[in-house]
């Protein structure tokens, strides 16, 4: 053992020939500024999205002869130009609410199925399939919705009208195919299922095993375990997952553009064909729009941008706050 310490260690070089500048610090600086620069660039992109959209939107709104928020019309090419987002805002919010009402409970159910009910061997492949489904492009959902789902839903619509027409919402006052906000809502629900499911599932898997085992030890049934330990722990996760899904639903373009037969009317009869959403309106009106018409569309896009920003920001804040106190990520 002693011999190892006796190895001839080459004498340290008497004086370092390198100057301080060549010890790699220059490389460090370049690399740091490159990576920090790209981070800053991202912030700049976000800021410039807001600035550019606001700038174009401001020029459009200043020439709008109607009220931008309350006008039930979209005619920027007219003389005088009149356009407003009331119908679009209504359609976007209503179709997203329908989507949320359907998708969130089902998604939580699927997440519970994968995390707590499915046979062990099935759970991993199922989670994988759900993730794959999130990758199906929205235009494919769109043509499927328009060519397959719409015919299927016609019977359901009549049936809803027959038995639930007294609720006013499900009263179908116009005949026509099921290209309604309700159908759009169902399609959006199917589209946001994968994302809501996968986020909730991850939260459910983080529930401390101790809590579940404690509940089991007290004689709880599986449902009681879920109600007592899993759902309370996962509540904020479910909320933020739903808001992420809501963000998707608000901004979805193609699925709405293919399914909905648009009209500039506000009607709470969600089974009637008609209505419109921000994204659908932009995609549909863009082709025929002149330069001013495009600015008007950009103005409506700005509202959509702000809306999704608020929803997504809120979702992320909820997730971030939860991370701090849950201790699940330790």
């Amino acid at each position, binding site marked *: 053992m002693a011999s190892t310490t006796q190895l001839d260690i080459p004498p340290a070089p008497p004086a370092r020939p390198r100057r301080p500048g060549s010890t790699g*610090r220059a*490389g460090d600086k370049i690399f*740091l500024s*490159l*990576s920090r*620069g790209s*981070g*800053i660039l*991202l912030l700049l*992109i*976000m800021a410039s*999205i807001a600035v*550019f*959209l606001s700038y174009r939107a401001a020029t459009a709104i200043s020439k709008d002869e109607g009220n931008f928020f309350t006008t039930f019309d979209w005619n920027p090419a007219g003389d005088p130009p009149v356009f407003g987002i009331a119908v679009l805002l209504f359609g976007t919010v209503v179709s997203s609410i329908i989507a949320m009402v359907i998708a969130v409970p*089902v998604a*939580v*159910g*699927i997440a519970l*199925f994968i995390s707590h*009910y*499915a046979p062990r061997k099935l759970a991993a492949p199922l989670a994988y399939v759900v993730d794959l489904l999130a*990758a*199906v*492009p*929205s235009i*494919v*959902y*769109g*043509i499927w919705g328009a060519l397959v789902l719409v015919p*299927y*839903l016609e019977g*359901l619509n009549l049936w809803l009208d027959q038995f639930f027409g007294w609720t006013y919402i499900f009263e179908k006052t116009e005949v026509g195919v099921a290209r309604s906000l309700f159908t759009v809502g169902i399609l959006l629900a*199917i589209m946001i*299922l994968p994302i809501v499911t996968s986020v909730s599932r991850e939260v459910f898997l983080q529930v401390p095993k101790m809590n579940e085992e404690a509940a089991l030890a007290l004689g709880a049934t*599986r*449902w*009681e375990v*879920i109600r007592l330990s899993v759902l309370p722990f996962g509540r904020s996760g479910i909320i933020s997952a739903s808001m992420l899904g809501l963000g*998707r639903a608000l*901004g979805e*373009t193609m699925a709405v*553009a*293919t399914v909905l037969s648009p009209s500039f009317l506000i009607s709470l009869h969600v089974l009637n064909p008609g209505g419109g959403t921000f*994204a659908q309106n*932009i*995609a549909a009106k863009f082709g025929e729009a002149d330069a001013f018409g*495009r*600015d008007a*569309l*950009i103005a409506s896009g700005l509202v*959509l*941008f702000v809306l*999704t*920003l608020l*929803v*997504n*920001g809120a*979702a*992320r804040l909820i997730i*971030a706050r939860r991370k701090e106190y849950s201790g699940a990520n330790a």
Partner: protein
Amino acid sequence: MSNATTTDVRDQRPQTRPGTHGTGLSSRSLPRWAPLGFAAVSVALAVGISTAAGWQSRVQWGLIAALLFLAISYVATTVVENQRQAKDRLATSVVWVCFLAAVVPLASLLWTTVSRGSERLDGYFLSHSMAGVLGSEATGGVYHALIGTLEQVGIATVISAPLGLLTAVYLVEYGKGGLARAVTFFVDVMTGIPSIVAGLFILSIMLIAGLEPSGLMGALALTILMIPVVVRSTEEMLKLVPNELREASLALGIPKWRTILKVVLPTAIGGITTGVMLAIARIAGETAPIILLVFGSQLINTNPFEGAQSSLPFYIYEQYKIGEAASYDRAWAAALVLIAFVMILNLVARGIARWKAPKTGR
């Protein structure tokens, strides 16, 4: 002390035991095949009711079957077992129904795409454009759109992969304080930007700078959608690299940037590749920015920097809007091509992730 209490407990237990029947292990319970039986009965009943009432839509049949299944299993369990078991059974049934309710439309989507798409999909379809083809004619193909998609997605990847990678490196290796927090937050928020808004942003720049629509403009919009996805996934992967590796390298006197380039990134390269490929798969299906920025074309245009191009998702939308039987066939075939492209990317990416998973410290 403890002795006394245990005897107390023991004294009490026999009193409660003999009387109760329903709660012990020996209580009656439904057989294991009961849920299957309930399902069979409810499906049969639903079919019966629906045909009797003359309802055409199979959506209704499914809904009725699901509701009957829930009701039957709840009532049967309440009668045979007890209220708590019944609630448990109800919850299990609800969860199963949720799962099946979600599987049905998704399976229908995939099946329709494959069966309708394979009618028109062949070598001719993949190698011809729509030049001079009328919407109602059953010829034409998807070649020009394929080229457009590949070029636009390629450009977007070339821009956003390095940017996203560097940002992730900054967040994981250097990031502290306000700037890093802001970047993290806005990357998350950026993930949620609707694709049409990204398209409008590039459009507003185009209007100001007087640029013409081209594949490049579409690619720029796709870049905005792709960067946050790359940053998120790369960040997760870099966080998985064990700190011991970094410390070992730094202890050898290697500067930090070389440590990152030679130790951290190679360790995480599998996951990073996966993340980039998943991001590609995600943007390949984006239609909205293409509508606004690339304009669409029936002809083959291999130059992404000038002139209108097409892309697969745009092609699908275009063919759908024509509204002829032949164009629907083309739309489904293109949808099949697009789904196959996305799914293969996904599968390969996940394969790489599994194959090259970073070795954790354990």
